[in-house]
């Protein structure tokens, strides 16, 4: 069970409205990611759900019950913090057992659940260490372990991977996804990294300045961004957003075309340009092409084999099937 509904939830700090009245429905077992630039209110939203902040207006329903006034501990949610928030004076075992101890479970049951969680998270050998003696990834797993043992209605993750290095991050990402599949419990995950959002989420909530810009599956967002903000935010490298005469040609104020939807050629194409910096990733190569027709350079994705000299003349052809059109307000034109 882990169905969370937000109804007209609002949060103000003094005069500043950080979350505008907002509705959101999270179904049981869903993996929902809140994504947005820093300061967009995604963490605040998570903390409102957790009960660590009071809402200024609206209601939070958990499994159909109004939980707006329920203290955090009673909401049946577990949270994994950005800094892991492990108790430094307790061993790993005690850390993981802490919520169980608070719930008043007997010692045997506590041990059983801790051992189980440790097995799942590969922490069995570290149970008697202190958090200070663990690596970043291990600490991360302890924090998750502490969340799992409670068997919560939903997990809340607040940028849990931002303190890990790149390689570990990919690994942990997989582990969390794996965990979700196995437990099929609702998870709400906050990140500013759209790659995490795309790879993990069942449903992405894009937030900007306290307002939901779009809600949808990763592919929905990729295919049909509702506005230029979402278009620019989702996808890597980011979508090329072009204005001016070329946009007008397509009956829009702005057109967007993703780097992977442009064909590059030395001979023929619609737009002419010169090659700027090229980034070789092996599997792919990203070219930054300066076109006289546009103010900003275009990013173009090509196969890993292609090699072009700096300053070489190239021709580009957009795939019109994947062209996104936006009006003057930045809203998508279907």
């Amino acid at each position, binding site marked *: 069970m882990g169905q969370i509904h937000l109804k007209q939830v609002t949060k103000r700090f003094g005069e500043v409205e950080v979350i505008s009245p907002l509705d959101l429905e999270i179904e049981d077992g869903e993996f929902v990611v809140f994504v947005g630039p820093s300061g967009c209110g995604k963490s605040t939203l998570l903390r409102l759900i957790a*009960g*660590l*902040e*009071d809402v200024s207006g609206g209601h939070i329903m958990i499994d159909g019950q109004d939980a707006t006034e329920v*203290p955090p501990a009673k909401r049946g949610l577990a949270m994994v913090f950005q800094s892991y928030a492990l108790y430094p004076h307790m061993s790993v075992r005690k850390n993981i057992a802490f919520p169980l101890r608070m719930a008043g479970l007997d010692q045997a049951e506590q041990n059983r659940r801790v051992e189980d969680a440790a097995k799942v998270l590969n922490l069995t050998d570290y149970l008697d260490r202190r958090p200070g003696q663990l690596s970043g990834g291990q600490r991360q797993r302890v924090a998750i372990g502490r969340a799992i043992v409670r068997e919560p209605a939903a997990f809340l993750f607040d940028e849990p991977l931002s303190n890990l290095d790149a390689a570990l991050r990919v690994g942990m990402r997989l582990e969390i996804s794996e965990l979700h599949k196995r437990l099929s419990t609702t998870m709400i995950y906050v990140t500013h990294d759209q790659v995490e959002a795309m790879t993990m989420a069942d449903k992405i909530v894009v937030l900007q300045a306290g307002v939901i810009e779009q809600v949808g599956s990763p592919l929905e967002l990729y295919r049909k961004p509702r506005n230029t903000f979402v278009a620019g935010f989702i996808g890597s490298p980011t979508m090329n957003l072009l204005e001016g005469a070329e946009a007008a040609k397509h009956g829009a104020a702005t057109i967007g075309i993703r780097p992977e939807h442009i064909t590059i050629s030395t001979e023929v194409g619609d737009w002419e340009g010169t090659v700027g910096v090229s980034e070789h990733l092996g599997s792919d190569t990203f070219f930054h092409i300066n076109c006289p027709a546009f103010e900003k350079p275009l990013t173009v994705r090509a196969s890993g084999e292609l090699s072009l000299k700096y300053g070489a003349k190239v021709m580009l052809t957009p795939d019109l099937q994947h062209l996104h059109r936006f009006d003057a307000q930045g809203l998508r034109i279907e």
Partner: protein
Amino acid sequence: MATQHSQSAARIMMAPAVILLLGWMLVPLTMTLYFSFKKYLPLRGGDLGWVGFENYTRFVSSSSFWPAVATTLIIVGGVLVITIFLGVLLALLLDQPMWGQGVVRILVIAPFFVMPTVSGLVWKNMFMDPTNGFLAYMWRAFGAEPVQWLSQASMPSLIMIVSWQWLPFATLILLTAIQSLDSEQIEAAEMDGASWFSRFRFIILPHLSRAITVVLLIQTIFLLSIFAEIFVTTAGSFGTKTLTYLIFQRVLESQNVGLGSAGGVYAIILANIVAAFLIRIVGKNLDA
């Protein structure tokens, strides 16, 4: 981060400390104010009626008042300057690699544990006494006339005694601050060609500013009310009468509580001026 619930809980939890201190401040403060407008002579039967501002004018017009204010500020200032200056040097020294650092640190912090009366007595008798004092023997050993510390160099002597007591405090805080300095910063400065002095001036000193602030603030609070050291050494003679000591004389030696209370009000005003001044200079450094 704060929920309504925790905010009201916070208020309740703060209440005992705030109420206690408020009481500890208000009761004596009101009493002091009350007495300061009275002719109150315990040896003549106590309360002899209201006298308006007479005590205030009398206290200020006394020939001892301004010298006492000056003495107070000189002692506070002198001790602050000495302890901070020597404290920085000592901290730099103790930060160097050496054998037995722990023991040296123990030696250096020891004076902080000595009660002010004892340190006053020990310095006065065993060291500064012009006949039997250790320093007198030292001076004589070098063929010099012993210095009559507490009479002819009373203020420097007093400042020295008090500095001896507070130097460990300053040194420890500054030492910890220096040890927390990122060595990469120093190395970077070295690569940039900064001399030892510039490294000190532009890297170490700014890094110490917060620690120096703490030393300033805490020491000032304690030094403004310094009493025992003066009581046992000079008893306020030879120009060492601080405002606190002058109040002591008025209240306990002359048994004029009204006059002393008026002095107390002046002392509070002086303390607040100093505090305001301090907060202005150092406040930025304290994210209290």
